[in-house]
């Protein structure tokens, strides 16, 4: 396949950055999108150019590290996949592919296509955990009966990999789906209920402090989420937040 790539190039966080056009040939349809970028970078370095910086780690859709806004969509045109799971068979020979970093004030660009998503870490630190005594007297989680339906919903919420596609996709750069998933996975379980009030209040306060936008329920996050996290979680977080506000 022969492709035209329009890639965001930015030397560092202070640089203004711009879209730059490149041509690439010899791309196989079975390559993953990141493999295509590897080949592209190899070619670019061979010509004496600076390789394009992009995030990646596990390359099997688990870690949430790869990002990229490809042809106007987070993780590209395929559904239920991260960028490492996107394959070049989704594109045609002669296509022009626009590749940009995830855009949000809360996700500043570090270099080229790499953005700083540590705002998510700080939201997690604010309450995305349960306080467990690890002195050796920990109660076995399986000793507490949990309704199958709740366990399934908690597991679904916990499948969020924190990639930030929800923020990148949302027209408001809202982090509601991410925070809602983290709130929900504990809110549905007895182990999480003990700290539920503080958790939702603190995580939402941190989310707002990071400069994410407000959710307007467009539903775009749910569609683009590689793990299919449901909007039901956002409704649950709204309920949790309102009830916690009344208690707190």
């Amino acid at each position, binding site marked *: 396949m022969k492709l035209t790539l329009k890639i965001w190039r930015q030397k560092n966080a202070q640089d203004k950055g711009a879209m730059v056009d490149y041509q690439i040939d010899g791309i196989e349809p079975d390559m993953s999108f990141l493999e295509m970028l590897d080949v592209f970078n190899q070619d670019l370095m061979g010509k004496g150019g600076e390789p394009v910086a992009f995030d990646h780690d596990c390359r099997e859709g688990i870690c949430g590290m790869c990002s990229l806004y490809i042809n106007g969509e987070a993780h590209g045109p395929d559904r239920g996949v991260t960028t490492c799971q996107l394959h070049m068979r989704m594109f045609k020979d002669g296509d022009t592919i626009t590749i940009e970093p995830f855009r*949000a004030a809360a996700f500043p660009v570090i270099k080229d296509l790499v953005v700083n998503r540590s705002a998510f870490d700080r939201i997690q630190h604010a309450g995305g955990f349960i306080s467990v005594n690890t002195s050796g007297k920990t109660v076995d989680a399986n000793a507490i009966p949990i309704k199958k339906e709740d366990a399934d919903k908690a597991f679904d919420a916990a499948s969020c990999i924190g990639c930030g596609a929800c923020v990148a996709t949302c027209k408001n750069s809202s982090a*509601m789906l991410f925070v809602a998933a983290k709130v929900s996975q504990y809110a549905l379980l007895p182990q999480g209920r003990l700290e539920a009030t503080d958790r939702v209040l603190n995580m939402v306060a941190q989310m707002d402090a990071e*400069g994410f936008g407000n959710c307007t329920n467009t539903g775009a996050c749910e569609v683009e989420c590689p793990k299919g996290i449901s909007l039901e979680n956002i409704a649950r977080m709204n309920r949790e937040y309102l009830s916690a506000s009344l208690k707190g």
Partner: protein
Amino acid sequence: MAKSALLKSSIAKKVAMALSGIFLMLFLAQHFFINMTSVFSADTFNSISHFMGNNPLVQYVIQPILILGVIFHFIMGIVLELKNRSARPISYAKNNGAANSSWSSRNMIITGAVIFAFLGVHFYDFWFPEMVYKYVDVNPLNEARYFHELVAKFESPVRTALYSVSFILLSLHLWHGFNSSMQSVGFNNKYSVALHKLGYVFAIVVPFGFIFIALFHHFNH
């Protein structure tokens, strides 16, 4: 948690936006049913309009709350839009919003602004003359006047067209607004599918019902 923090939170704002929207939709529904009576019976329409126009509870309590509700919904919409725009200072070179969301959900500020402008026209046509009639000129009560005033307004093809176009924008606003308001107040469960359908029915029946009423009186005056 300090109450000030609650009022500043993004979730509290979206819930406030939703509750004011639900209140306005309830108003819209009753306005729709009252206006629809004008198609079937001038007397019924006159009786209800006379009641609404002279009942102290409606005039001095509900009406001011309604006007404040409209202003609150509009200002909060602008506040949220500005905040949301600032959350993405650099736009995408290419953004395919249509791939994952509806046009109406992405353009609530546009449809909302048109509806607000329409309300200015609507107040100029009906509300201000009504206030002048009752409270400035202090005319005697006349229960039979409402139907004729309504029909007279829709003689104008320009006004009828303007109202019809505005109602189409209202339909688009409600298409997202109804279901969005339910999600914002935390209603998302096994009944949501049925409620979504009700929302779409509401978004079509009410605005296009208003268009029907406007056209009916335009062609039957």
